[in-house]
């Protein structure tokens, strides 16, 4: 995949710390409180903070925010580093800067819920998917979505996974059908038990089917009996393809669980 971002090569930043120049700057900052020396050190080691923000920050947070957090970590490292101990500054700074970014993610609630940025991205990917499918008459590829949204391919792939788990997104809202009318589901389905004929059902599974909503049964039927694509189903039912996918996976999982239990 051409859009997968290649990371920059591992570079020996630590060598910088051994230069006489930065040793002198550390001496001036730490022993004489020379603020200019601190500024010069900050400039010298900004590439380190930037490199770490880029490597650690594969996330929904904007890069500028991460860079700011990494810079804050760098400042802390500059203030706490003890040049007299003889360790290279970079080997001291890396864990300090990474620690600052971890704390930032923790404070943003990353550990407990889906970050807002990720939810926004999910909606963007869903909308772009529909837009491109309408324009081209065919569902887009990951690279086409990535190009359209100026994301990298991995971010799109991650979002395609994440969308499946977002019950809270308004994926269920009625959507315009291809003819432009807004129609709630109940009216579009008009299902009829008798014409629902998924393979041969044994009695257990007929009972099991009662656990799947009519809309899910209809969608299963369209995909596995009528052999419509998910995009075609999405247009017929008036929901997004991502939502069709989510409903299919969920109802198949329920059927499996029920078949297993019975």
């Amino acid at each position, binding site marked *: *995949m051409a859009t*997968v971002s290649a*990371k920059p090569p*591992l*570079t*020996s*930043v*630590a*060598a910088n710390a051994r230069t006489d120049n930065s040793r002198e700057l550390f001496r001036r900052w730490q022993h004489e409180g020379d603020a200019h020396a601190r500024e010069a050190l900050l400039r010298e080691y900004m590439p*380190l903070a930037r490199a*770490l923000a880029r*490597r*650690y920050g*594969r*996330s929904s947070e904007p890069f500028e925010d991460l860079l700011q957090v990494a810079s804050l970590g760098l400042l802390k490292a500059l203030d706490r580093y003890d040049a007299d101990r003889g360790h290279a500054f*970079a*080997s001291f700074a*890396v864990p300090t800067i*990474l*620690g600052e970014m*971890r704390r930032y*993610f*923790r404070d943003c609630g*990353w*550990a407990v819920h889906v*970050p807002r940025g990720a939810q926004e991205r999910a909606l963007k990917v869903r909308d772009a*998917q529909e837009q491109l499918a309408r324009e081209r008459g*065919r*569902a*887009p*590829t*990951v*690279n086409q979505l990535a190009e359209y949204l100026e994301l990298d*391919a*991995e971010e799109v*792939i991650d979002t*395609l*996974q994440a969308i*499946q788990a977002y019950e809270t997104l308004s994926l269920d809202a009625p959507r315009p059908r291809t003819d432009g009318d807004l129609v709630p589901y109940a009216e579009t389905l008009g299902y009829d038990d008798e014409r629902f004929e998924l*393979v041969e*059902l*044994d009695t*257990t599974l007929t009972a099991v*089917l009662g656990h799947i909503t009519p809309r899910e049964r209809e969608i299963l039927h369209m*995909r*596995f009996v009528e*052999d419509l*694509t*998910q*995009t075609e189903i999405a247009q017929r039912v008036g929901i997004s*393809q*991502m939502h*069709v*996918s989510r409903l299919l*996976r969920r109802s*198949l*999982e329920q*059927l*499996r669980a029920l*078949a297993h239990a019975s």
Partner: protein
Amino acid sequence: MRAELRLALTNRPENVLVVRQALTGLAGALALDAIETNDLNTAVTEACNNVVMHAYAGAEGPLEVDVQVRARVLCVVVRDRGIGMQEPYVGGGTGARDTLGLAVIDALSSCVGFACPCGGGTELRMEFPLPSDVALAECGDARGRAAAGEALLTRAVLVGALELRIAPSTLARAILPRVLSALAARAHFSTDRISDVQILADALAAHAGASVLAGELALGVTVTPRNLTLRIGPLPAGHAQSLVLAGADGLAPVIERLTDDRRVAPADLGETLELCLVDRP
């Protein structure tokens, strides 16, 4: 509690994404939070990128990632069969560990170490603490699985190929949809077909357990433009067909409907099921 995930790939840059997807899936199964998952991914990415860029001096060669889940610790080994410990890990007059990539790994893992296996190449071993004991099924006896390791590596070096082993096979539910989505994206599949691949991955993960040997799901994948071929097995004789039928879930013929071709081929230890998926423009 023990679980294993083995990936054999080539050191192409795009394969690092596959490793990340597999780890993200595993992290989900182990209930790691987003920060722990990011730490794990960042450290392993650094190790893999080093193999991508430095292990084979511009040529292509094997990249192996072995993950072992034990009580309270996740151990990841990233291995190559390349030119051994070279730049940037050694040399430059800055000491063996003074590089940014290694410093990142060091900061994010609880333990890191190098080895140079007798066959050549380099192994980087990282450990990550697991927050609490995770409820995973035992994956059974490892001896049955060891023999296939070398053959797996050799096959993976074929262009575009990837080998994946997951034990216990129930872990596949968290890992397979992500890995196969990434590979389907590489094959230029549409989002439609990628969703099909996820559904197929669910079905394989749900039903393969009854058929696999030693509790381990072994899967080879070949990616070409608009074509994804999965090779599942070795499976005991007769089980390939029953896996296709089981995929029907007594209801929707998932495996049959979502694949374009299905073949059973004899293999050393039984048979393999080959599933071919195409996405036509």
